[in-house]
């Protein structure tokens, strides 16, 4: 079967978009199939995201816009999968593209139809709080920005066709069925949140002021129905007392909800409480939770800040019942505190922290794609490769395999792309079409000949701004040789007109006065490039979103403003100059630092794509942190997996292994790194160059100073206990084993959770009970953080009779020693003060960063560390494996404490991100970067400090002495350096000082 160099991605949430971008950038044709009418998934509905409180829309829409217009990504919306056949390397998928009843190629998303449609339907995006027309767009910043008709609600009255000037409404548009031939499939359909059924005990659906957390997210959102004001649905008042209930539909054994833990509710409830308080200080949130599962990077700090800075009250109990106070519509909550008191309290509003279910069409998708589902209805995945489904060639990422948060979803999205490379790497670049463009006309030296195209945009501009007057005015401006107006400048036929006018008038600058450049600039830049003009000889004047639409009631002022904006655009256009994108050749080899599981998985992934990899390990043999781990909680045999990995790495001809190696020097930049390493017992030097670096240096287990560790034989760590259990049976005659959690984690020194100690403790406890059922096992914990499907084992542990006792942070257990036996004195929340005799004390020690090594390597790579000395990634949510400096990636424990399967995903993800560079022999770098005028630069070093991307360094120049020099490959063109430069020595192409100066002085 001939392999196909294309990939189908099912579901265009943040996971699907990231996979498509990675694959699109690596030379595959991508068919992105979305079931709704816009990409963005649940993340687009969120107001802010934890743990950084970034506004979700700000950080996701640039990625969605990029996915929408990526040259190699074929996006089809409103689709349904009909049938799948074939096998890994060559699948054929029959897809039904349901009609939108509007032609997406013509529709400009202006929204006139939506505003005139007489029918009102329930706005699913706003979770039913608001209503919108039957002709709708999913949300204002939807990608692609096209309208669709919701057939069930539409009564077919024909008003929208009447008002649509672009004639985009086509009622007779049929559904289309198409067969797509791809080499691999990635499933990213996301999840559906748990909705409490009728007559549920929370009163959801009956009491107006009981809402689900996703509804509350829309209430919080600045672009939501209440414009960001926190109001309660019953009477629009600000709810002063808001109760957040955890584990609704999760950790639920009554059969109504799901038995597993949905992993993210603890965090998003805390975030919603924080943001609600931030929006309205009157709001006083209280969160009813069992365990607080803040296990991710910087999650614990977020919870502590929520409590201390925002005054969020946490009550550890599960609500028994909610009743509504009829006249005030408040809600009376009955709950039992830990020490047994029953309390009733009135709240103005209740938010249900609903869990995550598999997507409603999970069974349908599983049957069509022939993949197995696990006992909870999620996609069944391989223990040691969490993106590999049961069918080879088909991968799953995001919440479809297990409830997870956005950083993990994005990591798995890249990991899935990483796995696709392993199958289809030979077919890279076979199905993508390089556009053939005419040679650029040489415009330097010509006087500016500017063409202005003013747009009516149907009635959106023409209705409020006197477009003919603006066009007439534009033609009077100096250097403007042609001014023209059209109904829809962005329509396909007008692109042709623009090209004709460029030839006819020998234009060397083009201005379009219409809508926002954020979405339309690339479209026009492509058009003028196809007419032979350099892309950057183009400027837009935003006279719709920032003029006609916002000054509807003041037509004269709007027209005058439009004229001013056109004049400013013409002034800037006069000073536009062609910019060419810099091409950099790429050494298609890679380097992996650290030989633990992450390092080895990454190296093997590269090797399977015949990319030469240099694996540098500081110790004498490979293995890293996992050397003394035997099994995963889910039963995976780690030692066997590790041995197999080490053999593969050693035997693979594409992997050069350097053990007890030390990096002597590592310099260069993306695509062109040069490293020299001193390795081996004889300290030989090895030098090699490579295009990308993956940091997988891992971390160390915390060596406790407390709890008498090291002074008593029977005080051991979990890792040591696991070794004892799996090697000999010295603990046969132990009567009572006591485990203490959070040793060295979640304290002032290490204010974070090490994520894997609860899992290790329960694994070992179950093993002890299996081997020696008579031994009594007690676990003293602060929070049991067995997130996701690991909850199953926590329940099994309790069934096996393992005792769990909670203690507070401020009074930890104390160890009293009388001769050889130990006594653990602890003040438990539920059972008061206890003193437990034990003959084996096990400490669940956390993970700490290897401080010095990280610091040294970080300086060499010029990448940042966070305050816990783990590596700081470029963006916690959307670039979890990249560094701000291009070409360098991170994986495994070096990034933050995580479990083995997370590390494996992150390793594959890092490989996929690196392949977006290594898959090309030369990469094109953003043209609008900074440029230095060496004669003006005095070498004060201010810009070097201000640059977040380490793109500037001071060099000794023969003529000008110590001056700054810009590395075009790393510069993003943000201008932070030029803003502070006293001598105006730095300028930003595309936004030069002269251009901005001319826009300022355009004031009349």
């Amino acid at each position, binding site marked *: 079967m001939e392999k196909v160099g294309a990939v189908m991605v099912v579901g265009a949430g943040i996971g699907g978009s990231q996979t498509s971008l990675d694959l699109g950038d690596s030379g595959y044709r991508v068919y992105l199939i979305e079931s709704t009418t816009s990409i963005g998934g649940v993340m687009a509905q969120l107001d802010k995201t934890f743990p950084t409180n970034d506004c979700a829309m700000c950080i996701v829409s640039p990625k969605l816009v990029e996915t929408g217009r990526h040259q190699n990504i074929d996006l089809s919306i409103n689709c349904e999968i009909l049938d799948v056949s074939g096998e890994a390397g060559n699948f054929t998928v029959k897809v039904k593209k349901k009609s939108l009843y509007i032609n997406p190629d013509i529709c400009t998303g202006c929204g006139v139809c939506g505003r005139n449609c007489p029918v009102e339907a329930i706005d699913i995006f706003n979770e039913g709080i608001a209503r919108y027309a039957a002709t709708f767009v999913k949300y204002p910043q939807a990608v692609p920005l096209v309208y669709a008709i919701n057939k069930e609600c539409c009564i077919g009255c024909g008003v929208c066709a009447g008002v649509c000037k672009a004639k985009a409404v086509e009622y007779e548009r049929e559904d289309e069925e198409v067969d797509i031939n791809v080499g691999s499939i990635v499933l990213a359909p996301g999840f559906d949140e748990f909705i409490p059924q009728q007559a549920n005990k929370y009163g959801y659906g009956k009491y107006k002021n009981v809402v689900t957390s996703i509804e509350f997210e829309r209430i919080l959102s600045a672009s939501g129905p209440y414009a960001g004001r926190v109001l309660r649905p019953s009477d629009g008042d600000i709810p002063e007392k808001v109760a957040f209930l955890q584990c609704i539909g999760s950790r639920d054994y009554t059969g109504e909800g799901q038995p597993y833990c949905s992993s993210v509710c603890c965090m998003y409830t805390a975030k919603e409480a924080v943001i609600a308080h931030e929006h309205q200080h009157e709001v006083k949130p209280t969160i009813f939770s069992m365990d607080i599962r803040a296990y991710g990077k910087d999650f614990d700090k977020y919870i502590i800040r929520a409590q201390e800075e925002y005054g969020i009250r946490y009550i550890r109990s599960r609500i028994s019942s909610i009743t509504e106070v009829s006249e005030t519509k408040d809600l009376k909550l009955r709950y039992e505190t830990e020490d047994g008191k029953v309390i009733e309290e009135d709240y103005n509003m209740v938010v249900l922290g609903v869990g995550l279910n598999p997507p409603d069409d999970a069974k349908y998708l599983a049957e069509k794609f022939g993949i197995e589902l696990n006992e909870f209805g999620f996609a069944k995945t391989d223990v040691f490769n969490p993106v590999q489904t049961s069918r080879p060639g088909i991968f799953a990422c995001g919440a479809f395999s297990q409830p997870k948060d956005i950083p993990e979803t994005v990591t798995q999205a890249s990991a899935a792309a990483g796995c696709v490379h392993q199958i289809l790497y030979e077919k890279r670049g076979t199905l993508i079409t390089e556009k053939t463009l005419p040679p650029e006309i040489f415009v330097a030296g010509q006087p500016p000949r500017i063409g202005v195209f003013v747009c009516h945009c149907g009635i959106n501009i023409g209705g409020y701004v006197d477009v003919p007057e603006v066009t007439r005015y534009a033609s009077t401006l100096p250097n403007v040789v042609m001014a023209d107006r059209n109904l829809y400048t962005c329509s396909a036929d007008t692109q042709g007109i623009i090209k004709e006018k460029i030839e006819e008038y020998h234009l060397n600058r083009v201005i379009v006065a219409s809508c926002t450049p954020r979405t339309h600039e690339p479209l026009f830049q492509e058009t003028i490039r196809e007419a032979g003009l350099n892309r950057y000889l183009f400027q837009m004047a935003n006279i719709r979103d920032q003029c006609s639409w916002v000054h509807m009631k003041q037509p004269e002022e709007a027209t005058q403003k439009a004229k001013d904006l056109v004049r400013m655009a013409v002034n800037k256009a006069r000073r536009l100059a062609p910019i060419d994108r810099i091409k950099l050749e790429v050494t298609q080899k890679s380097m992996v630092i650290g030989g633990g599981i992450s390092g080895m998985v990454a190296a093997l992934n590269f090797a399977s794509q015949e990319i030469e990899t240099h694996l540098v390990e500081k110790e004498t043999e490979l293995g890293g942190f996992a050397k003394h781990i035997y099994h995963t909680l889910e039963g995976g045999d780690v030692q066997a997996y590790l041995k197999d990995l080490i053999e593969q790495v050693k035997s693979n001809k594409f992997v050069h292994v350097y053990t007890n190696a030390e990096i002597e020097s590592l310099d260069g930049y993306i695509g062109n790194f040069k490293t020299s390493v001193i390795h081996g017992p004889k300290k030989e030097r090895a030098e090699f160059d490579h295009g990308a670096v993956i940091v997988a240096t891992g971390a160390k287990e915390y060596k406790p100073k407390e709890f008498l560790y090291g002074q008593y034989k029977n005080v051991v760590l979990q890792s040591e206990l696991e070794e004892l259990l799996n090697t000999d049976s010295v603990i046969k005659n132990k009567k009572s084993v006591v485990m203490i959690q959070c040793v060295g984690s979640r304290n002032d020194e290490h204010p974070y959770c090490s994520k894997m100690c609860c899992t290790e403790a329960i694994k070992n406890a179950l093993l002890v009970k299996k081997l020696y059922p008579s031994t009594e096992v007690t676990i003293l914990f602060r929070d049991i953080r067995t997130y996701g499907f690991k909850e199953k084992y926590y329940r099994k542990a309790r069934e096996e009779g393992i005792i769990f006792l909670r203690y507070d942070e401020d009074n930890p257990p104390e160890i009293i020693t009388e001769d050889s036996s130990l006594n653990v004195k602890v003040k438990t929340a539920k059972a008061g003060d206890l003193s437990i005799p034990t003959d084996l004390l096990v400490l669940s020690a956390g993970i700490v960063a290897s401080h010095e090594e990280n610091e040294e390597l970080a300086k060499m790579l010029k990448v940042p560390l966070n305050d816990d000395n783990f590596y700081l990634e470029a963006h916690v949510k959307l670039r979890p494996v990249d560094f701000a400096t291009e070409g360098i990636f991170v994986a495994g424990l070096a990034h933050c404490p995580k479990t083995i399967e997370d590390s494996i995903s992150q390793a594959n993800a890092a490989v996929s991100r690196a392949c977006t560079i290594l898959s090309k022999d030369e990469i094109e770098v953003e043209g609008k970067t900074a440029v230095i005028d060496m*004669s*003006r630069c*005095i*070498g*004060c*070093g*201010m810009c070097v*400090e*201000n640059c977040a991307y380490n793109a500037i360094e*001071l060099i000794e120049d023969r003529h000008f*002495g*110590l001056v700054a020099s810009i590395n075009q490959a790393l510069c993003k063109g943000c201008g932070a350096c030029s803003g*502070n430069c*006293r*001598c*105006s020595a730095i300028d930003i192409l595309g936004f030069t*000082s*002269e251009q901005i*100066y*001319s826009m300022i002085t355009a004031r009349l």
Partner: protein
Amino acid sequence: MGIETDNKEIISSIRENAKLLLSENQVDVIIGYSEGTVPLSSTPIIIRKEEDVDKLIWNNLCYINLARYLAPLMPQLCDSEGNSLKIGIVAKGCVGRAVNLLAVEKQIDLDNIKMIGFNCNGIVNRSKIDLEIGEKEILDVSISGDDIIVKGHNWEKKFPYDQYINELCKVCQIKSPSATDANCIGECQELESIHDEFSDIAEFESKSADEKWAYIKDALQVCTLCYSCRQACPMCYCNLCFVDQNMPTWFGKTTQFTDIFTFHLIRAQHLAGRCVACGACSSVCPVGIDLNIITRKLEKIAKERFDYTSGLNAETIPPMMDFKMEDEEEFMLEED
């Protein structure tokens, strides 16, 4: 103990240290002050040989900040063998600060600099004396006890030192250079930070906007944009100042008030967190404009907003080259 005796002690300690440096040829040249060629001034001097050491003097008219001569040209000079020149510099407190800041801004290499530190006892406010003398020609200026004696053709006037000392020197807390003894001999200190209430400009800051504008307009009205303040400032070492730039020409150089005002405003913006409060700009101003309140304001901004005092050492990154997530942003517009 009057000013006169202080000056003598300082002169002797400077000469002694200078002789020591030259004799052990730790340095190739020494920059210092010498007698002024015209009354009420002093002249910078560069000496190479031990015997010229006696030309070095210190009196309360040494207002020039000698660090001005370190950048931008000095680093390029080199001795006969071609390695860069080892420079000694007579350093009062503010000169020491300027040297540290120039080092942070990579204009000079501290290893080639050797400061001769001493406890500065302040400089005289020249323009105040000039104003009071008025048209009469000054023939000689000398200091006796705690008074400044100014003599002319058959007239003489005594000015008590404590009333005519420069305001900046009155509130100055860094009398001697803050540097390690690796590059400073004589009176040196190692300061971590200083505490300053800035009460002297509090009165001006409490004025209303119009009063402040009126004061500034009146003060700067006489400025002829001769740029001597820029030439005297150790921190203004750019080889193309913003007023001289074209493509685009940001600001005009006519003597309209708006051009005068924008020059002083932008220069103040550039000196925030960098000005070392040496007062040279006010001392050299031919038309006697008092820029000291602006200097004090710049120091206040650096201290209160960024907890930074310029020139205490050559390591801490100045405020404009750094940022913190929790910087104050009380000035940001918020919805009410």
